[in-house]
């Protein structure tokens, strides 16, 4: 087996995939669902409902607030309770729509049957139609970044798409939502991939999966052969060596097609690749074939001390508290609650934070692991330099941010940082490298934006 991986840096954190073989359960409906208006990269959505309005499952409650934006749909039926602010996964109070749940009544346009709809059976699906349906269903990248999917499918005129790469790497420890989705809905994912390829007008597709998921590799390779052999499409399942952060878009492109995306503002399509998460492929299938907007997703709820960690098909807007209760409740003692996995997840201050489009996992780190170790002086061992997958010098970027030298930070390419946290993971002195670099990156990006605005 030809096992590829990316070429610079990388680490191998403890996997802790506690829920690999735990079948997905459908999460119970919440009593009240909370919908932040900013669940994607770009402009926040604009509410189109008012207090007291009745909504069904699948009713649009907020429309796209700009070109780079996405509409938001209700995941429950009931009455709009209020439009207010609440703490979301960023830790800040943001505008939200709160809906009191009554029953479970769906919009009639949604096809709720299990019947597999194939692309061949729907000749009306032109590339433009596919892209429009994806756009109208509010589909965004489900891996966590939440970039609106339709924009990725319509690259700028300077770039030409050559292939679609499905990101089934799931290199982040603990998380198994994508794996369960592949095991349970492989056919739908492949049709989703076909739709993405048709929408982007390409005929080559890859599915990148790490070798710690042999069953998924076997299943998808077999299904791919059945489905695409003899068709107009060439699709290959690419087994990848386990290495973090392989699920990073640029690392995956490097691993699969051996091309390196240049420094920002270049994006993967500049080297011909459109990268989509498996969850996104599934959402695309449902949006295009089943007329089902994006309002539920697969999420892993996990932690070493949780009584029953599991994978859930969960309606968006469900507070994390409900899912944690479904897994046996918050463990005793000190816990750290993360939206996402231990490497890239964001620590949360409240269990009331709702599941959003990008919440691939709720991870609870308990006991000593939840406590940061005291930082020691940097002895310039250069471990951070050797693991950085972007070829940066984390020790230097962290120091430059700490002394607020933004000019030099920009010169040292701080904006190329993908915030994977490999440096902080590997630092033997437990230094908060990523925290400082994130601060430096956001400040420098702000400076670059304001400079561009002045011109």
């Amino acid at each position, binding site marked *: 087996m030809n096992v590829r991986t990316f070429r*610079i840096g990388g680490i191998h954190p403890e996997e802790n995939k506690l829920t690999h073989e735990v079948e997905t359960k459908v999460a119970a409906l919440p009593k009240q669902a909370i919908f932040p208006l900013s669940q994607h990269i770009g402009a926040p959505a604009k509410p189109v409902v008012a207090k007291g309005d009745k909504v069904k499952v699948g009713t649009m409650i907020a429309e796209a607030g700009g070109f780079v934006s996405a509409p938001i749909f209700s995941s429950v039926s009931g009455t709009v309770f209020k439009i207010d602010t609440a703490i979301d996964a960023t830790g800040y109070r943001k505008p939200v729509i709160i809906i009191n749940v009554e029953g479970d009544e769906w919009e009639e346009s949604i096809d709720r049957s299990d019947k597999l709809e194939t692309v061949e059976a729907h000749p009306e699906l032109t590339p433009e139609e596919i892209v429009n349906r994806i756009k109208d269903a509010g589909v965004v990248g489900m891996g966590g970044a939440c970039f609106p999917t339709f924009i990725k499918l319509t690259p700028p005129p300077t770039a030409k798409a050559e292939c679609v790469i499905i990101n089934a790497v799931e290199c982040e420890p603990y998380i198994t939502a994508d794996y369960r989705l592949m095991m349970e809905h492989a056919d739908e994912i492949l049709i989703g991939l076909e739709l993405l390829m048709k929408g982007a007008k390409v005929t080559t597709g890859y599915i990148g999966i790490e070798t710690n998921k042999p069953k998924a590799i076997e299943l998808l390779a077999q299904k791919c052969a059945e489905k695409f052999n003899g068709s107009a499409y060439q699709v290959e399942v690419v087994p990848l060596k386990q290495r973090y952060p392989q699920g990073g878009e*640029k690392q995956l492109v*490097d691993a699969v097609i051996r091309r*390196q*995306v*240049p*420094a920002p503002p*270049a994006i993967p399509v500049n080297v011909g690749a459109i990268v989509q998460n498996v969850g996104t492929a599934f959402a695309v299938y449902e949006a295009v074939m089943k007329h089902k907007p994006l309002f539920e997703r697969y999420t892993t709820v996990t932690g070493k001390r949780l009584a029953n960690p599991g994978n859930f098909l969960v309606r968006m807007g469900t507070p994390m508290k409900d899912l944690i209760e479904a897994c046996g409740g918050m463990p005793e003692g000190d816990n750290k609650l993360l939206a996402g996995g231990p490497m890239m997840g964001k620590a949360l201050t409240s269990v009331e934070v709702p599941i959003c489009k990008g919440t691939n996992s709720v991870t609870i780190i308990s006991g000593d692991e939840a406590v940061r170790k005291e930082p*020691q*002086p*940097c*002895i*310039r*061992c*250069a471990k951070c*330099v*050797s693991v*950085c*997958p*972007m*070829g*940066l*010098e984390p*020790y*230097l970027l962290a120091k430059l941010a700490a002394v607020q030298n933004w000019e030099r930070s920009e010169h040292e*390419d701080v904006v*190329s940082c993908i915030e994977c946290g490999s440096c902080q993971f590997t630092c033997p002195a437990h230094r908060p490298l990523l925290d400082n670099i994130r601060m430096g990156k956001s400040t420098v990006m702000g400076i670059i934006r304001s400079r561009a605005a002045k011109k």
Partner: protein
Amino acid sequence: MYGVIIALLPALLVSFYFFGIGSAIVCATSVAACVLFEWAINKFMLKNERTTICDGSAVLTGLLLGFNLPSNLPIWIIIIGALFAIGVGKMTFGGLGNNLFNPALVGRAALLVAFPAQMTTWPKVGQLTSYLDAETGATPLAIMKEAIKSGDASVLDKLPDSMSLFLGNHPDGAGAMGEICALALLLGLAYMLWKKIITWHIPVSIICTVFVFAGLMHLANPIYADPVSVILSGGLMLGAIFMATDYVTSPMTPKGQLIYGVAIGFLTVVIRNWGAYPEGMSFAILIMNAFTPLINTYVKPKRFGEVPAKK
């Protein structure tokens, strides 16, 4: 730090085997003095709440300093060396992680300048029970220097053969405690590479450069010793494996480390052949320590997605 200390154990045991009680006294004094100075300066001068004693860095400095000294050096001189190493070499810059120069080498260089006589007479191996009264002999490097000064290649016949230089067991062999046995030091290198404490770049580039440069000199004029003897003599192995690879004072990127290593190798041979002292390793490392910030500033890792410059 403790990984490096483990890697030094073979060389430490060998030095006990060859130099006996003198070696034990020198090492113990050096380590104890380094730890004591680090603790005292932290507590009474810098007034730090937290000490850095437990991280093992002072122990390591003490061991490395001891390895660079003759095993018949009086205790009071060792203590002065430790004060220079920790006080001047490390703590004046702000302690662990901030020093520009390798502390153990700062200590050794200071002693070499202040006590040239004591620091250049080396006891012979095998005198297990003697300390200050040990009989001294000529080190291989001193023999090489003599050959160059006199211009007489036959002086080199007095050199021990390569195998005894490698094992350190020549009866007339003499030298600093830690540098006598190349085999023990190479074992330490193997351990550090296995445990991924260091990468190969610095030691290999230093040793290769010295081998090639010394080999060319030997071919050009036989008064310069053969390259195998050159790389097995003096502090070259100790320096290349344990001193030049010090994290704090060496460059961060593999490319930078190669530049640093090649320059150290080159300077070592230059000082050995044309300088005043027979040994050039420690000065070569100190000189390149000074260039490390410059190398870090200009030698960058290859960024992801960077298009190689077209020629």
